[in-house]
């Protein structure tokens, strides 16, 4: 305690040197925390977006993810309601669950034949009320870009398409889409209505009188063509109720969200309906390992014949892991760089201080300070510099983060189709915050160790003779 007090006195008395060192440490900590906060915001935003869209876990047919995405019919899960019922009533899983919802992914071709346009899409058949509930998940209190889907479970024909799809279907005016190119419609060449054979398919396959074929003059009414489980083509009539910026351009140009029942009718007709996944959203991401283990046990014991797998959102989205790795590697590089600068700054400052204070060191030893106590004294100075530097760094970081977070600065990430707010997530990330502060204080203490050792090894008579 006495040495800690004496070290503090020394720092107070050497104000100029102390302040310049604290300033260097503060800048170092601020740099690390600001970039760390930016990294955290990106990573947690990504996680939040993925969990809101598709949940934490998905139960799929074992080979669907790697081999079956272009053939959802082959890898569909039958009797999925029984599986959901089992999970819902499981005493371990039930308390963890926020939403459990079935999903059917399929590919198809949509077109507004009256307008003479069509394009291929990746469609997701969903239960809109479940998906809208999933959008409320925000465990990290992130700035959420999600808005509820304007779909209702009872309106079977309603669909939402990506803005890119909307542009291709010449829906720019209807849905007030930007970046549109005026296209001369080739309708006159192709004919005013859809071909007779497809028109019959609509009537036969869907048994949905309200949908029918697209009528001339209403470009929001479309038809969707897909292959049934039997391999035959099937067509349904749909109504685009909204376009949505899907975030990523590649998705935006291909995506379609539709009612699960409608998607099942299109794919399976009157056969037993299946889904390609059962999506589970948990209360917290930290529950993933426990929930996965429980699910695997349940599925292997209760449905051994189904060959089901449980995949988490990280496994399903390799880009997430790659982004995390990328951000972490940059953060690591910056941290090492800053740490090295701080290390050399403190070592240099302490070394100069020791040279300047050689006579003082000799006097301290003459008075009776042991080598180890002298070493401790200088290490305490380093420790206190670290603590004070960290405190000032936190103040500086908070002020800078506040300014950035309220500046409204935005950026468009690679592959994304709209701008995201630049936000720094520092106080909400305790690992980053405490890790950086403790790391920096440890580093400054470590930096002082070498000069402190040198000071403690000085011969008293030489130190007292120093001019």
């Amino acid at each position, binding site marked *: 305690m006495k040495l800690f007090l004496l070290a503090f006195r020394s720092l107070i008395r050497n104000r100029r040197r102390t302040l310049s060192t604290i300033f260097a440490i503060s800048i170092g900590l601020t740099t690390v925390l600001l970039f760390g906060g930016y990294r955290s915001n990106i990573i947690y935003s990504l996680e939040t977006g993925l969990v809101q869209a598709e949940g934490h876990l998905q139960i799929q047919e074992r080979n669907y993810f790697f081999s079956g995405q272009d053939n959802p019919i082959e890898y569909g899960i039958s009797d999925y309601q029984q599986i959901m019922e089992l999970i819902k009533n499981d005493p371990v899983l039930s308390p963890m669950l926020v939403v459990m919802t079935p999903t059917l992914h399929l590919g198809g071709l949509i077109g507004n034949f009256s307008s003479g346009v069509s394009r291929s899409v990746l469609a997701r058949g969903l239960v809109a009320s479940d998906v809208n509930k999933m959008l409320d998940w925000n465990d990290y209190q992130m700035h959420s870009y999600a808005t509820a889907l304007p779909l209702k479970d009872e309106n079977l024909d309603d669909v939402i398409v990506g803005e890119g799809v909307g542009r291709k279907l010449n829906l720019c005016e209807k849905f007030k889409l930007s970046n549109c190119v005026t296209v001369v419609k080739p309708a006159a060449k192709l004919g005013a209505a859809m071909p007779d054979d497809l028109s019959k398919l609509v009537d036969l396959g869907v048994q949905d009188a309200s949908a029918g074929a697209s009528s001339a003059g209403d470009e929001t009414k479309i038809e969707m063509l897909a292959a049934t489980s039997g391999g035959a083509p099937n067509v349904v009539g749909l109504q685009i109720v909204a376009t949505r910026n899907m975030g990523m351009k590649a998705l935006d140009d291909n995506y379609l969200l539709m009612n699960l029942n409608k998607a099942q009718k299109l794919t399976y007709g009157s056969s037993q309906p299946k889904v390609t996944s059962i999506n589970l959203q948990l209360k917290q991401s930290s529950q993933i390992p426990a929930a996965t283990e429980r699910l695997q046990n349940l599925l292997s014991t209760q449905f051994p014949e189904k060959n089901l797998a449980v995949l988490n959102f990280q496994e399903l989205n390799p880009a997430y892991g790659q982004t995390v790795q990328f951000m972490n590697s940059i953060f690591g590089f910056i941290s090492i760089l800053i740490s090295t600068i701080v290390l050399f700054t403190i070592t240099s400052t302490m070394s100069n201080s020791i040279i300047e204070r050689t006579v*003082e060191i000799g*006097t301290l030893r*003459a*008075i*009776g300070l042991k080598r180890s106590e002298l070493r401790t004294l200088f290490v305490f100075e380093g420790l206190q510099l670290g603590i004070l530097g960290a405190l000032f760094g936190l103040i500086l970081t908070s002020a800078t983060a506040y300014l950035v977070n309220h500046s409204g600065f935005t950026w468009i990430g690679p592959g994304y189709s709209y701008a995201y707010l630049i936000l720094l997530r520092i106080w909400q990330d305790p690992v980053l915050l405490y890790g950086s502060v403790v790391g920096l204080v440890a580093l400054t203490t470590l930096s002082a160790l070498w000069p402190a050792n040198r000071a403690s090894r000085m011969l008293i008579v030489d130190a007292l003779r120093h001019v």
Partner: protein
Amino acid sequence: MNTVVFKNVSKSYQLGTITTSVLRDISFEIEPNLFTVISGPSGSGKTTILNLIGCLDKQSSGEIMVAGKSTTNMSDDEMSQFRLQNLGFIFQNFNLFPMLSAYENVEYPLILINMPAAQRKKRVMELLDAVGLSSKANNFPNQLSGGQRQRVAIARALSKNPSLVLADEPTANLDSHTGTEIIQLMRSMQKLLKITFIFSSHDPHIQAAADNTIVVNDGVIKNLVAA
């Protein structure tokens, strides 16, 4: 028992391949509670003798006893502890801690011996009063004259109530008038506190005030003069 006993003490330094002999087989004893001066020309070995008495350095051979204890085989930590408990130092350049006030300079050794705060404060003020600087307690060394700094240094050396005070040419950086005042102050303190003072000096005023004088030249004792 004498405060200091040197028996056949030699000290040499190795400078590269050259060995320089500073003290050569010297023996002497200093009685307690006396004012003793070690005198001699520059380079004669005065400071080396003081350093050896003060456990700041180790002899190359021979035996040294200080305050009844042999320092010959003491470890570095034991020597530090010995200095802390038994010795006070006064330096030619005062060696006050520039970042501490006069009060804090005197207080510093007391913190090291874990003296309670209230007792510490009383002791520091008594000593500053004794050296005539109670009004300058909050002044920093650069706000004090040379004589005042040396008074603070004396107060600091006496703060732990040591049995032996060592002073290396304490008046060398002072004018003759101030030097005389400092000698008188040390003499009065030595008598008042009944402690042993050992100086290195070639100042005739100090030699005149001393109880004993040890004259050293070229690393050997030339003369021992008792008052």
